[in-house]
Protein backbone atom coordinates (compact mmCIF):
# COMPACT_ATOMS: atom_id res chain seq x y z
CA UNK A 1 0.00 0.00 0.00
CA UNK A 2 1.37 3.46 -0.76
CA UNK A 3 0.20 6.98 -0.18
CA UNK A 4 -1.65 7.19 -3.50
CA UNK A 5 -4.50 5.12 -2.06
CA UNK A 6 -6.15 6.85 0.86
CA UNK A 7 -7.24 10.32 1.87
CA UNK A 8 -8.48 11.79 -1.37
CA UNK A 9 -9.67 8.58 -2.93
CA UNK A 10 -12.06 8.04 -0.05
CA UNK A 11 -15.55 8.60 -1.50
CA UNK A 12 -16.40 12.26 -1.68
CA UNK A 13 -19.11 13.78 0.43
CA UNK A 14 -20.89 15.32 -2.51
CA UNK A 15 -21.11 14.57 -6.20
CA UNK A 16 -19.57 17.79 -7.41
CA UNK A 17 -16.00 16.69 -7.07
CA UNK A 18 -14.64 18.64 -10.02
CA UNK A 19 -15.20 21.96 -8.31
CA UNK A 20 -13.58 20.85 -5.11
CA UNK A 21 -10.04 21.64 -4.20
CA UNK A 22 -7.78 19.73 -1.88
CA UNK A 23 -5.91 21.89 0.58
CA UNK A 24 -3.11 20.54 2.69
CA UNK A 25 -2.54 22.16 6.09
CA UNK A 26 0.50 21.20 8.07
CA UNK A 27 2.27 19.17 9.38
CA UNK A 28 4.72 22.05 9.67
CA UNK A 29 2.43 24.95 10.44
CA UNK A 30 2.29 27.15 13.52
CA UNK A 31 -1.50 26.98 13.77
CA UNK A 32 -1.51 23.18 13.83
CA UNK A 33 -0.26 22.95 17.43
CA UNK A 34 2.46 20.49 16.67
CA UNK A 35 2.79 18.18 13.72
CA UNK A 36 -0.84 17.71 12.77
CA UNK A 37 -1.62 17.43 9.09
CA UNK A 38 -5.12 18.24 7.94
CA UNK A 39 -6.26 17.47 4.43
CA UNK A 40 -9.25 19.64 3.64
CA UNK A 41 -11.56 19.22 0.71
CA UNK A 42 -12.95 22.66 0.02
CA UNK A 43 -15.62 24.05 -2.21
CA UNK A 44 -14.61 27.67 -2.59
CA UNK A 45 -14.12 28.66 1.02
CA UNK A 46 -16.49 26.07 2.42
CA UNK A 47 -15.05 22.95 4.03
CA UNK A 48 -16.62 19.84 2.54
CA UNK A 49 -14.57 17.32 4.43
CA UNK A 50 -11.56 17.37 6.66
CA UNK A 51 -9.24 14.46 7.24
CA UNK A 52 -6.64 14.48 10.00
CA UNK A 53 -3.45 12.67 9.14
CA UNK A 54 -1.39 11.84 12.21
CA UNK A 55 1.59 9.77 13.22
CA UNK A 56 4.39 12.23 12.48
CA UNK A 57 5.44 12.14 16.11
CA UNK A 58 4.99 8.42 16.66
CA UNK A 59 7.92 7.12 18.65
CA UNK A 60 6.50 3.81 19.82
CA UNK A 61 6.37 4.73 23.49
CA UNK A 62 4.05 1.80 24.25
CA UNK A 63 6.58 -0.61 22.76
CA UNK A 64 9.41 1.04 24.66
CA UNK A 65 7.51 0.63 27.93
CA UNK A 66 7.51 -3.13 27.50
CA UNK A 67 11.29 -3.12 27.69
CA UNK A 68 11.51 -0.95 30.82
CA UNK A 69 11.01 -1.59 34.51
CA UNK A 70 7.80 -0.19 35.93
CA UNK A 71 9.57 2.75 37.57
CA UNK A 72 11.45 3.56 34.38
CA UNK A 73 8.20 4.21 32.53
CA UNK A 74 7.42 7.34 34.59
CA UNK A 75 9.76 9.64 32.60
CA UNK A 76 8.32 8.27 29.36
CA UNK A 77 4.82 9.32 30.38
CA UNK A 78 6.03 12.93 30.68
CA UNK A 79 6.62 12.92 27.00
CA UNK A 80 3.09 12.01 26.00
CA UNK A 81 1.16 15.11 26.87
CA UNK A 82 4.21 17.30 27.29
CA UNK A 83 2.15 20.28 28.41
CA UNK A 84 0.74 18.50 31.46
CA UNK A 85 3.41 16.03 32.57
CA UNK A 86 2.10 15.68 36.12
CA UNK A 87 -1.29 14.46 34.89
CA UNK A 88 0.41 11.68 32.92
CA UNK A 89 2.62 10.77 35.86
CA UNK A 90 -0.39 10.69 38.17
CA UNK A 91 -2.40 8.41 35.91
CA UNK A 92 0.45 5.97 35.45
CA UNK A 93 1.42 5.87 39.13
CA UNK A 94 -2.20 5.36 40.22
CA UNK A 95 -2.55 2.46 37.80
CA UNK A 96 0.58 0.69 38.99
CA UNK A 97 -0.30 1.34 42.61
CA UNK A 98 -3.63 -0.35 42.05
CA UNK A 99 -1.88 -3.36 40.57
CA UNK A 100 0.38 -3.45 43.60
CA UNK A 101 -2.48 -2.67 46.03
CA UNK A 102 -0.21 -0.03 47.52
CA UNK A 103 -1.53 2.58 49.95
CA UNK A 104 -0.16 6.07 49.51
CA UNK A 105 0.44 8.40 52.47
CA UNK A 106 -2.14 11.13 52.89
CA UNK A 107 0.29 13.98 52.32
CA UNK A 108 1.46 12.53 49.01
CA UNK A 109 -2.17 12.25 47.90
CA UNK A 110 -2.85 15.90 48.71
CA UNK A 111 0.35 17.08 47.08
CA UNK A 112 -0.56 15.09 44.00
CA UNK A 113 -3.92 16.80 43.77
CA UNK A 114 -2.26 20.17 44.24
CA UNK A 115 0.25 19.45 41.50
CA UNK A 116 -2.33 17.98 39.15
CA UNK A 117 -4.36 21.17 39.42
CA UNK A 118 -1.29 23.35 39.01
CA UNK A 119 -0.61 21.37 35.86
CA UNK A 120 -4.14 22.05 34.70
CA UNK A 121 -3.53 25.77 35.10
CA UNK A 122 -0.26 25.44 33.21
CA UNK A 123 -1.94 23.56 30.39
CA UNK A 124 -4.96 25.86 30.15
CA UNK A 125 -2.67 28.90 30.10
CA UNK A 126 -0.84 27.58 27.07
CA UNK A 127 -4.14 26.73 25.43
CA UNK A 128 -5.52 30.21 26.06
CA UNK A 129 -2.40 31.98 24.83
CA UNK A 130 -2.00 29.97 21.65
CA UNK A 131 -5.72 29.88 20.90
CA UNK A 132 -6.03 33.66 21.20
CA UNK A 133 -2.86 34.07 19.17
CA UNK A 134 -4.32 31.95 16.36
CA UNK A 135 -7.33 34.22 16.28
CA UNK A 136 -5.07 37.26 16.15
CA UNK A 137 -5.08 38.46 19.76
CA UNK A 138 -1.35 38.29 20.28
CA UNK A 139 -1.21 40.17 23.58
CA UNK A 140 -2.89 37.45 25.59
CA UNK A 141 -0.15 35.03 24.68
CA UNK A 142 2.46 37.25 26.36
CA UNK A 143 0.31 37.55 29.46
CA UNK A 144 -0.45 33.87 29.86
CA UNK A 145 3.18 32.93 29.38
CA UNK A 146 4.11 35.38 32.12
CA UNK A 147 1.96 33.37 34.57
CA UNK A 148 3.04 30.06 33.13
CA UNK A 149 6.63 31.03 33.75
CA UNK A 150 5.91 31.25 37.48
CA UNK A 151 4.34 27.77 37.44
CA UNK A 152 7.37 26.41 35.61
CA UNK A 153 9.65 28.01 38.19
CA UNK A 154 7.68 26.32 40.94
CA UNK A 155 8.08 23.02 39.09
CA UNK A 156 11.77 23.66 38.65
CA UNK A 157 12.22 24.24 42.37
CA UNK A 158 10.24 21.09 43.04
CA UNK A 159 11.67 18.63 40.57
CA UNK A 160 14.72 20.31 39.11
CA UNK A 161 13.01 20.35 35.74
CA UNK A 162 10.68 22.85 34.18
CA UNK A 163 8.68 20.71 31.80
CA UNK A 164 9.59 17.03 31.97
CA UNK A 165 9.21 16.94 35.71
CA UNK A 166 8.93 13.18 36.41
CA UNK A 167 8.21 14.15 39.98
CA UNK A 168 5.74 11.39 40.80
CA UNK A 169 6.95 7.98 41.83
CA UNK A 170 5.22 4.67 42.22
CA UNK A 171 4.42 4.85 45.91
CA UNK A 172 4.48 8.60 46.36
CA UNK A 173 6.61 11.49 45.23
CA UNK A 174 10.26 11.80 44.34
CA UNK A 175 11.46 14.09 47.13
CA UNK A 176 10.40 16.63 49.71
CA UNK A 177 9.23 19.89 48.18
CA UNK A 178 11.62 22.82 48.81
CA UNK A 179 11.05 25.01 51.85
CA UNK A 180 9.55 27.92 49.95
CA UNK A 181 7.24 25.70 47.88
CA UNK A 182 3.99 26.30 49.76
CA UNK A 183 4.62 30.04 50.04
CA UNK A 184 5.30 30.30 46.33
CA UNK A 185 2.18 28.36 45.39
CA UNK A 186 0.16 30.46 47.82
CA UNK A 187 1.59 33.64 46.34
CA UNK A 188 0.85 32.46 42.85
CA UNK A 189 -2.76 31.49 43.42
CA UNK A 190 -3.46 34.60 45.48
CA UNK A 191 -2.54 36.71 42.48
CA UNK A 192 -3.94 34.40 39.83
CA UNK A 193 -7.71 35.10 39.88
CA UNK A 194 -6.94 38.71 39.00
CA UNK A 195 -4.90 37.50 36.07
CA UNK A 196 -7.85 35.47 34.81
CA UNK A 197 -9.92 38.66 34.99
CA UNK A 198 -7.22 40.33 32.97
CA UNK A 199 -7.44 37.72 30.19
CA UNK A 200 -11.18 37.87 30.35
CA UNK A 201 -11.11 41.67 29.97
CA UNK A 202 -8.97 41.29 26.89
CA UNK A 203 -11.04 38.59 25.26
CA UNK A 204 -14.56 38.10 26.57
CA UNK A 205 -15.84 41.47 25.41
CA UNK A 206 -13.69 41.57 22.31
CA UNK A 207 -16.03 41.64 19.27
CA UNK A 208 -13.47 40.07 16.92
CA UNK A 209 -12.73 37.21 19.30
CA UNK A 210 -16.42 36.69 19.91
CA UNK A 211 -17.22 36.78 16.21
CA UNK A 212 -14.58 34.19 15.46
CA UNK A 213 -15.74 31.79 18.18
CA UNK A 214 -19.48 32.10 18.71
CA UNK A 215 -21.48 29.61 16.73
CA UNK A 216 -18.31 28.10 15.26
CA UNK A 217 -17.37 24.44 15.44
CA UNK A 218 -20.60 23.25 17.00
CA UNK A 219 -20.57 19.79 18.49
CA UNK A 220 -23.80 18.36 19.85
CA UNK A 221 -23.91 16.37 23.08
CA UNK A 222 -24.84 13.21 21.20
CA UNK A 223 -21.94 13.66 18.78
CA UNK A 224 -19.53 14.34 21.61
CA UNK A 225 -20.44 11.03 23.25
CA UNK A 226 -20.50 9.11 19.97
CA UNK A 227 -17.08 10.40 18.95
CA UNK A 228 -15.39 9.90 22.31
CA UNK A 229 -14.80 13.58 22.99
CA UNK A 230 -14.09 14.23 26.67
CA UNK A 231 -13.10 16.90 29.11
CA UNK A 232 -13.86 20.60 28.61
CA UNK A 233 -14.79 19.90 24.99
CA UNK A 234 -17.51 17.46 26.06
CA UNK A 235 -18.73 19.69 28.89
CA UNK A 236 -18.95 22.57 26.44
CA UNK A 237 -21.53 20.47 24.60
CA UNK A 238 -23.62 20.02 27.70
CA UNK A 239 -22.56 16.57 28.90
CA UNK A 240 -22.22 16.90 32.65
CA UNK A 241 -19.48 14.44 33.49
CA UNK A 242 -16.15 14.91 35.18
CA UNK A 243 -14.13 11.98 36.51
CA UNK A 244 -12.83 14.08 39.39
CA UNK A 245 -16.36 14.47 40.70
CA UNK A 246 -18.17 11.41 39.37
CA UNK A 247 -15.55 8.70 39.78
CA UNK A 248 -13.13 10.26 42.25
CA UNK A 249 -9.53 9.10 42.29
CA UNK A 250 -6.54 10.24 44.31
CA UNK A 251 -8.62 11.83 47.06
CA UNK A 252 -10.62 14.21 44.89
CA UNK A 253 -13.74 13.33 46.87
CA UNK A 254 -12.37 15.48 49.71
CA UNK A 255 -12.35 18.63 47.63
CA UNK A 256 -15.18 21.02 46.90
CA UNK A 257 -15.39 22.29 43.36
CA UNK A 258 -17.92 23.01 40.65
CA UNK A 259 -17.85 21.44 37.22
CA UNK A 260 -18.59 24.16 34.65
CA UNK A 261 -21.09 23.24 31.96
CA UNK A 262 -22.23 25.01 28.83
CA UNK A 263 -24.76 23.81 26.30
CA UNK A 264 -23.88 25.72 23.13
CA UNK A 265 -21.17 23.30 22.04
CA UNK A 266 -19.28 25.94 20.07
CA UNK A 267 -15.75 27.29 20.43
CA UNK A 268 -17.03 30.06 22.66
CA UNK A 269 -18.53 27.57 25.14
CA UNK A 270 -15.22 25.73 25.31
CA UNK A 271 -13.44 29.02 25.95
CA UNK A 272 -15.81 30.01 28.74
CA UNK A 273 -15.58 26.59 30.36
CA UNK A 274 -11.79 26.53 30.43
CA UNK A 275 -11.67 29.99 31.99
CA UNK A 276 -14.06 28.80 34.71
CA UNK A 277 -12.10 25.61 35.18
CA UNK A 278 -9.03 27.70 35.92
CA UNK A 279 -10.93 29.47 38.69
CA UNK A 280 -12.10 26.15 40.10
CA UNK A 281 -8.54 24.80 40.00
CA UNK A 282 -7.38 27.78 42.02
CA UNK A 283 -10.03 26.85 44.59
CA UNK A 284 -8.83 23.25 44.73
CA UNK A 285 -5.21 24.32 45.14
CA UNK A 286 -6.24 26.64 47.97
CA UNK A 287 -8.08 23.80 49.73
CA UNK A 288 -5.06 21.56 49.26
CA UNK A 289 -2.77 24.18 50.78
CA UNK A 290 -5.13 24.81 53.70
CA UNK A 291 -5.71 21.19 54.53
CA UNK A 292 -2.28 19.79 53.71
CA UNK A 293 -1.67 16.98 56.21
CA UNK A 294 1.67 16.19 57.76
CA UNK A 295 3.61 13.02 57.28
CA UNK A 296 5.75 11.21 54.76
CA UNK A 297 5.47 11.58 50.99
CA UNK A 298 6.49 8.02 50.19
CA UNK A 299 4.72 4.79 50.98
CA UNK A 300 6.31 2.49 53.53
CA UNK A 301 7.22 -0.20 51.02
CA UNK A 302 10.98 -0.66 50.99
CA UNK A 303 10.87 -3.17 48.14
CA UNK A 304 9.11 -0.70 45.83
CA UNK A 305 10.06 2.80 46.93
CA UNK A 306 13.70 3.84 46.74
CA UNK A 307 15.19 4.64 50.16
CA UNK A 308 16.41 8.11 51.05
CA UNK A 309 19.95 8.89 50.03
CA UNK A 310 20.97 9.25 53.67
CA UNK A 311 19.55 5.87 54.65
CA UNK A 312 21.06 4.19 51.64
CA UNK A 313 24.52 5.33 52.67
CA UNK A 314 24.19 4.37 56.31
CA UNK A 315 22.02 1.25 56.44
CA UNK A 316 22.89 -2.09 54.89
CA UNK A 317 19.26 -3.06 54.41
CA UNK A 318 18.43 0.15 52.56
CA UNK A 319 21.46 -0.27 50.33
CA UNK A 320 20.33 -3.78 49.36
CA UNK A 321 16.82 -2.57 48.57
CA UNK A 322 18.21 0.29 46.55
CA UNK A 323 20.44 -2.04 44.57
CA UNK A 324 17.63 -4.51 43.97
CA UNK A 325 15.12 -1.93 42.82
CA UNK A 326 17.56 -0.25 40.47
CA UNK A 327 18.99 -3.40 38.93
CA UNK A 328 16.03 -5.79 38.99
CA UNK A 329 12.99 -3.59 39.45
CA UNK A 330 10.12 -5.02 41.47
CA UNK A 331 7.64 -7.68 40.47
CA UNK A 332 4.06 -6.55 40.05
CA UNK A 333 1.25 -9.09 40.60
CA UNK A 334 -0.29 -10.40 37.40
CA UNK A 335 -3.50 -8.75 36.31
CA UNK A 336 -4.83 -5.82 34.40
CA UNK A 337 -6.01 -2.37 35.44
CA UNK A 338 -7.46 0.59 33.65
CA UNK A 339 -7.00 3.82 35.53
CA UNK A 340 -8.87 6.88 34.33
CA UNK A 341 -8.21 10.44 35.38
CA UNK A 342 -9.47 13.82 34.28
CA UNK A 343 -6.47 15.39 32.60
CA UNK A 344 -6.58 19.02 31.45
CA UNK A 345 -7.69 17.81 28.03
CA UNK A 346 -10.22 15.20 29.07
CA UNK A 347 -10.36 11.63 30.19
CA UNK A 348 -7.01 9.99 30.22
CA UNK A 349 -6.88 6.26 30.78
CA UNK A 350 -3.87 4.04 31.24
CA UNK A 351 -4.34 0.35 30.72
CA UNK A 352 -1.60 -1.81 32.15
CA UNK A 353 -1.36 -5.58 31.81
CA UNK A 354 1.09 -7.29 34.11
CA UNK A 355 2.35 -10.84 33.77
CA UNK A 356 3.91 -10.87 37.22
CA UNK A 357 7.38 -9.71 36.20
CA UNK A 358 9.20 -6.43 36.79
CA UNK A 359 8.37 -5.07 33.35
CA UNK A 360 4.87 -4.23 32.12
CA UNK A 361 3.60 -6.79 29.64
CA UNK A 362 1.54 -4.19 27.85
CA UNK A 363 0.87 -0.53 28.49
CA UNK A 364 -1.76 1.37 26.57
CA UNK A 365 -2.36 5.08 26.87
CA UNK A 366 -5.83 6.36 26.18
CA UNK A 367 -5.21 10.02 25.63
CA UNK A 368 -8.04 12.51 25.24
CA UNK A 369 -6.69 14.42 22.23
CA UNK A 370 -6.63 11.28 20.08
CA UNK A 371 -10.39 10.85 20.31
CA UNK A 372 -11.09 14.58 20.15
CA UNK A 373 -9.42 14.75 16.76
CA UNK A 374 -12.08 12.44 15.34
CA UNK A 375 -14.69 15.09 15.96
CA UNK A 376 -12.92 17.66 13.81
CA UNK A 377 -14.76 16.67 10.66
CA UNK A 378 -18.16 16.85 12.36
CA UNK A 379 -17.39 20.29 13.75
CA UNK A 380 -16.11 21.74 10.51
CA UNK A 381 -18.31 20.39 7.71
CA UNK A 382 -20.00 23.25 5.89
CA UNK A 383 -18.02 25.90 7.75
CA UNK A 384 -15.59 28.44 6.36
CA UNK A 385 -11.98 27.47 5.94
CA UNK A 386 -10.85 30.17 8.37
CA UNK A 387 -12.86 28.41 11.09
CA UNK A 388 -10.47 25.47 10.92
CA UNK A 389 -7.88 27.53 12.78
CA UNK A 390 -10.39 28.59 15.43
CA UNK A 391 -11.66 25.04 15.97
CA UNK A 392 -8.25 23.37 16.05
CA UNK A 393 -7.21 25.95 18.62
CA UNK A 394 -10.33 25.51 20.71
CA UNK A 395 -10.24 21.72 21.09
CA UNK A 396 -6.82 21.96 22.74
CA UNK A 397 -4.90 19.04 21.32
CA UNK A 398 -1.34 18.00 21.95
CA UNK A 399 0.27 15.91 19.26
CA UNK A 400 2.66 14.23 21.66
CA UNK A 401 -0.19 12.28 23.22
CA UNK A 402 -1.97 11.65 19.93
CA UNK A 403 0.98 10.06 18.18
CA UNK A 404 2.69 8.58 21.25
Amino acid at each position, binding site marked *: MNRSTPILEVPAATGARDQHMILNMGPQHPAMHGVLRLVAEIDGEIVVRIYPEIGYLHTGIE*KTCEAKFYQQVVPLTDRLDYLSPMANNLCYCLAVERLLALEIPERAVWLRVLLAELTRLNSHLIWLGTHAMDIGALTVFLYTFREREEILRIFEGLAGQRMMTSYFRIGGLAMEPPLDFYARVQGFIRAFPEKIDEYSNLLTGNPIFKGRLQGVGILSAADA*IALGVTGPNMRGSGVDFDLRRDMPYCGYEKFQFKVPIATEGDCWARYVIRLQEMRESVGIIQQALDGMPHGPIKADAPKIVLPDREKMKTQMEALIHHFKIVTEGFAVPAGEVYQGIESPRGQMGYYIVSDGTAKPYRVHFRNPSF*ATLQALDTMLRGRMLADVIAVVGSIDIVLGEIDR
Partner: protein
Amino acid sequence: MLETKTFIGKTAVLEGLAEHPAVKAILAWRPEALADAKFDRNELTLTIAAGEIRVAAATVQAAGYNFFEDVTAVDWFPASPRFQLSYHILSHIYKERIRLRVMVEGDEPAVESITAIWPAANFYEREVFDLFGIIFEGHPNLLRIMMPDDWKGHPLRKDYPVEGYR
Protein backbone atom coordinates in the same frame (compact mmCIF):
# COMPACT_ATOMS: atom_id res chain seq x y z
CA MET B 1 -9.61 2.58 49.77
CA LEU B 2 -8.85 -0.44 47.65
CA GLU B 3 -11.61 -2.90 46.90
CA THR B 4 -10.87 -6.39 48.11
CA LYS B 5 -13.85 -8.26 46.70
CA THR B 6 -12.85 -10.50 43.82
CA PHE B 7 -14.78 -12.91 41.63
CA ILE B 8 -12.85 -15.03 39.19
CA GLY B 9 -14.68 -17.14 36.63
CA LYS B 10 -18.05 -16.97 35.00
CA THR B 11 -20.06 -18.75 37.66
CA ALA B 12 -18.59 -16.67 40.49
CA VAL B 13 -19.42 -13.44 38.70
CA LEU B 14 -22.92 -14.61 37.81
CA GLU B 15 -23.52 -15.42 41.48
CA GLY B 16 -21.82 -12.41 42.97
CA LEU B 17 -22.88 -9.77 40.50
CA ALA B 18 -26.20 -11.05 39.22
CA GLU B 19 -27.72 -7.59 39.64
CA HIS B 20 -25.02 -5.81 37.68
CA PRO B 21 -26.72 -4.02 34.74
CA ALA B 22 -24.14 -5.13 32.16
CA VAL B 23 -24.18 -8.75 33.31
CA LYS B 24 -27.96 -8.73 33.31
CA ALA B 25 -28.15 -7.28 29.83
CA ILE B 26 -25.72 -9.82 28.39
CA LEU B 27 -27.57 -12.70 30.03
CA ALA B 28 -30.91 -11.43 28.79
CA TRP B 29 -29.51 -11.19 25.29
CA ARG B 30 -27.54 -14.43 24.95
CA PRO B 31 -25.99 -16.20 27.97
CA GLU B 32 -23.76 -18.41 25.80
CA ALA B 33 -22.05 -15.35 24.31
CA LEU B 34 -20.45 -14.77 27.70
CA ALA B 35 -17.38 -16.99 27.58
CA ASP B 36 -15.76 -15.92 30.82
CA ALA B 37 -15.92 -13.18 33.42
CA LYS B 38 -14.01 -11.76 36.31
CA PHE B 39 -14.29 -8.98 38.82
CA ASP B 40 -10.82 -8.06 39.91
CA ARG B 41 -9.38 -4.86 41.41
CA ASN B 42 -12.82 -3.30 41.21
CA GLU B 43 -13.03 -3.81 37.46
CA LEU B 44 -15.53 -6.05 35.74
CA THR B 45 -14.23 -7.93 32.73
CA LEU B 46 -16.69 -9.77 30.51
CA THR B 47 -15.13 -12.07 27.94
CA ILE B 48 -17.33 -12.21 24.88
CA ALA B 49 -17.17 -15.03 22.36
CA ALA B 50 -15.33 -13.97 19.22
CA GLY B 51 -17.80 -12.95 16.54
CA GLU B 52 -20.35 -11.64 19.01
CA ILE B 53 -18.65 -8.40 19.96
CA ARG B 54 -20.66 -6.05 17.76
CA VAL B 55 -23.99 -7.17 19.17
CA ALA B 56 -22.54 -7.40 22.67
CA ALA B 57 -21.40 -3.79 22.38
CA ALA B 58 -24.84 -2.74 21.24
CA THR B 59 -26.34 -4.66 24.17
CA VAL B 60 -24.25 -2.96 26.84
CA GLN B 61 -24.81 0.37 25.13
CA ALA B 62 -28.55 -0.14 25.45
CA ALA B 63 -28.02 -1.14 29.10
CA GLY B 64 -26.61 2.30 29.94
CA TYR B 65 -22.93 1.94 29.14
CA ASN B 66 -23.03 4.85 26.79
CA PHE B 67 -19.46 6.04 26.44
CA PHE B 68 -16.79 4.18 24.52
CA GLU B 69 -13.40 5.02 25.95
CA ASP B 70 -10.83 2.76 24.45
CA VAL B 71 -10.03 -0.40 22.59
CA THR B 72 -6.62 -1.95 22.51
CA ALA B 73 -5.00 -5.33 22.10
CA VAL B 74 -2.60 -7.52 24.03
CA ASP B 75 -0.40 -10.02 22.24
CA TRP B 76 -0.04 -13.23 24.28
CA PHE B 77 2.44 -14.76 21.81
CA PRO B 78 3.09 -17.72 21.66
CA ALA B 79 -0.10 -18.70 23.50
CA SER B 80 -3.30 -19.55 21.71
CA PRO B 81 -5.60 -17.73 21.19
CA ARG B 82 -2.95 -15.16 20.61
CA PHE B 83 -4.62 -11.74 20.74
CA GLN B 84 -6.76 -10.23 23.43
CA LEU B 85 -8.87 -7.21 22.61
CA SER B 86 -9.93 -5.04 25.54
CA TYR B 87 -12.80 -2.62 25.09
CA HIS B 88 -13.25 -0.11 27.89
CA ILE B 89 -16.73 1.24 28.15
CA LEU B 90 -17.91 3.83 30.62
CA SER B 91 -21.37 4.54 31.90
CA HIS B 92 -22.28 8.14 32.64
CA ILE B 93 -25.36 6.89 34.48
CA TYR B 94 -23.83 4.24 36.75
CA LYS B 95 -20.51 6.08 36.91
CA GLU B 96 -18.50 2.98 36.35
CA ARG B 97 -16.53 1.24 33.70
CA ILE B 98 -16.64 -2.27 32.26
CA ARG B 99 -14.20 -4.10 30.09
CA LEU B 100 -15.32 -6.32 27.26
CA ARG B 101 -12.70 -8.79 26.25
CA VAL B 102 -12.43 -10.79 23.06
CA MET B 103 -9.82 -13.43 22.35
CA VAL B 104 -8.77 -13.68 18.71
CA GLU B 105 -6.83 -16.45 17.02
CA GLY B 106 -3.40 -15.68 15.68
CA ASP B 107 -3.04 -16.48 11.98
CA GLU B 108 -5.29 -13.97 10.33
CA PRO B 109 -6.81 -12.22 13.30
CA ALA B 110 -10.09 -10.59 12.48
CA VAL B 111 -12.99 -9.29 14.48
CA GLU B 112 -16.11 -7.28 13.75
CA SER B 113 -15.78 -3.52 13.91
CA ILE B 114 -17.92 -1.63 16.42
CA THR B 115 -17.66 1.69 14.59
CA ALA B 116 -21.34 1.39 13.65
CA ILE B 117 -22.19 1.51 17.36
CA TRP B 118 -19.59 3.97 18.55
CA PRO B 119 -17.98 6.04 15.78
CA ALA B 120 -15.33 6.86 18.39
CA ALA B 121 -13.86 3.40 17.82
CA ASN B 122 -12.70 4.47 14.37
CA PHE B 123 -9.21 5.73 15.26
CA TYR B 124 -8.72 3.15 17.98
CA GLU B 125 -9.45 0.24 15.68
CA ARG B 126 -7.15 1.74 13.08
CA GLU B 127 -4.46 1.94 15.70
CA VAL B 128 -4.90 -1.70 16.69
CA PHE B 129 -4.88 -2.70 13.02
CA ASP B 130 -1.72 -0.71 12.45
CA LEU B 131 0.24 -1.88 15.46
CA PHE B 132 -1.12 -5.43 15.87
CA GLY B 133 -2.38 -6.37 12.42
CA ILE B 134 -5.88 -7.29 13.58
CA ILE B 135 -8.47 -6.77 10.86
CA PHE B 136 -11.72 -5.05 11.84
CA GLU B 137 -14.43 -6.20 9.47
CA GLY B 138 -16.82 -3.48 8.46
CA HIS B 139 -14.52 -0.62 9.43
CA PRO B 140 -15.09 2.32 7.07
CA ASN B 141 -11.46 3.31 6.62
CA LEU B 142 -9.07 0.67 7.88
CA LEU B 143 -5.69 2.23 7.10
CA ARG B 144 -2.50 2.54 9.06
CA ILE B 145 -2.68 5.50 11.40
CA MET B 146 0.65 5.73 13.20
CA MET B 147 3.15 4.02 10.95
CA PRO B 148 3.85 4.95 7.31
CA ASP B 149 1.61 3.16 4.82
CA ASP B 150 4.44 1.14 3.31
CA TRP B 151 5.63 -0.13 6.69
CA LYS B 152 6.21 -3.85 7.00
CA GLY B 153 5.08 -5.65 10.11
CA HIS B 154 3.12 -4.63 13.17
CA PRO B 155 5.35 -3.10 15.83
CA LEU B 156 3.43 -3.95 18.99
CA ARG B 157 3.40 -7.67 18.32
CA LYS B 158 5.63 -9.53 20.71
CA ASP B 159 7.62 -11.18 17.90
CA TYR B 160 8.52 -7.75 16.56
CA PRO B 161 11.85 -6.75 18.10
CA VAL B 162 12.07 -3.54 20.13
CA GLU B 163 14.85 -2.24 17.91
CA GLY B 164 12.91 -2.98 14.72
CA TYR B 165 14.11 -5.22 11.91
CA ARG B 166 17.65 -4.55 10.80
